[in-house]
């Protein structure tokens, strides 16, 4: 029993997209631009040469925010989307009717249709692959060359995640929507 979350030291991201590849590989995500659980947002450089704003050029790695108050779970008509015992928002492919309501309700565009099961899929913190095998890291975390991600138990005060959240300022995305994301961006 844990409450999993993740911190992203996003300024360290170098846009190598190793996490995108690792996620596909580990979780067997099908190929295709639309089929992704994880992505790196790129913001182009602003301004006209030579007055380019280097500060504006940022990379924002992201994935499902594992909301504590998840709109996708709230709108699901069959409880296919549920919180598992570790607070991870998961989709049960046996119950999903592919009404796509959750895809519309998620404010982060974290969901897509998985053609293997013809149901909705999204990041589940590698719950049915690595965590199920007893590992304690996620694929995207393990592969990252600049160690952007810290995955861990928010309920355990000794976890690396809890420590870093105590020590460093952080923010969550679209906080005003009340989704209570468990993905934290470190400043």
């Amino acid at each position, binding site marked *: 029993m844990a409450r999993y979350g993740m911190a992203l030291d996003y300024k360290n991201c170098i846009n190598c997209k190793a996490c995108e590849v690792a996620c596909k590989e580990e979780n067997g995500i099908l190929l295709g631009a*639309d089929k992704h659980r994880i*992505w790196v*947002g*790129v*913001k182009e450089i602003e301004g006209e040469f030579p007055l380019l704003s280097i500060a504006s050029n*940022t990379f*924002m790695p*992201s994935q499902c925010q594992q909301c504590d108050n998840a*709109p996708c779970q*709230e*709108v*699901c*008509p*069959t*409880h*296919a989307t549920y919180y598992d015992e570790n607070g991870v928002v998961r989709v049960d492919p*046996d*119950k*999903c*009717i*592919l*009404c*796509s*309501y959750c*895809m*519309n*309700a*998620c*404010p*982060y*565009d974290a*969901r*897509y*249709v998985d053609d293997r099961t*013809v*149901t909705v899929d999204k990041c589940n913190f590698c719950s049915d692959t690595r965590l199920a095998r007893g590992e304690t890291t996620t694929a995207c975390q393990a592969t990252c060359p600049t160690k952007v991600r810290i995955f861990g138990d928010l309920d355990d005060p000794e976890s690396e995640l809890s420590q870093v959240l105590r020590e460093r300022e952080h923010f969550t*995305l*679209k906080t005003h*929507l*009340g989704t209570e994301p468990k993905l934290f961006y470190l400043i």
Partner: protein
Amino acid sequence: MDLQKIIPYRKMSLKELLIPENKFMAFVAVALTALFLIGVGIYLVHGHHAYGVTRQHPWGLLIAVYIFFVVSSTGLCIVGSFGDVFGFKDYMSVSKRAIFGSIVTILAGFAVIAFEIGHPVRMMIYNVLSPGLTSAIWWMGTLYGIYLTFMIIEFIFLVRNDMKRAKVAGLIGLLVGLAAHSNLGGVFGFLNARVVANGVFYPTYFILTAFITGIYLIFLMYGYKYRGQDFPSDIAKALTNFMKIQGLLLAILMFFETWKMLTGVYGGMPERADVIMHILHTKSFWLGEVLCGMVIPFVLILATKGSAIKKMVWASFIGMIGIFYMRYDLVHDAQLFPMQTLKIREYQLPPSFVEYFPSSTEIMIGIGGVGICLILYYLGTKLFDLDTMPEHH
């Protein structure tokens, strides 16, 4: 068991049943239904890949067509209830046909949505086994199921001339239908992340436009039945009244829309003002929704002081085109703004709005739904007496 005892229908040979009086309409209905079947065939082979829907625009034309049909159904239920539920004598003569229309339209809607929901059978199982009570889709689906049941019961009693029981079933059907329909608005209204859809607007707007749609359709049904001849006096009276009510309803709708757009644009709030401005620059809004759906019928009603019921039949046809655009636009507009904000950067205006255009398969299934509706309606007019109503007061 004798079906005749449950619901009295006209006995006729299959040949009689299948020979239509209007060959043109029969052709249209069969051709559209054939399109539906072809579309369904393609869908069964290719699944959602045959549709134009994407990760960012998961709801497409078929959701719009489904809404179009259930709005029609709710509207006809409201219109039909005037007579047999509320007991207004002037409207009694149109009740039976309206209630029958509400059944065929919702059946057509269900036929279409069955090929948009990925797993409709699973839906029926898990809607019962693990109901998601916080989901507007769960409520909408469940309530519409109950609604359909009561509409059928009401219709059976109407055909049996059992007005007392029809009234009870009709009242329950109407209330459940209104709840179901506002829940359908809630499906959009509950989307906190979609600023243009979020809020009270859609649940109320759905009921208002349902009423408007119901009146358009009642004009179409009677206009078709009495094509080339005068309306009987009781029908003419009901239609004249409905035409006047329609004038009021359209005025309210225009008022609603105006304020929706004004509050949407005011202050230039990101994600809302830009989406509304985008909508205000589309032809489908101005020509489809406003001109066809509201202005043309409204001008006719005003100009003739609500008396030109023959012309109103044509205006209703145009009005229904407008109603279709309202459904299509509302589904599309809700998804216009990309939720991928993060993939660029929060609060940064995204480079473009999400685009969507229905695929040929979606179009075939969508307009094919009209064919199903026409065929069911035709069978109803053949099998049942949809006109004579007993004087019960």
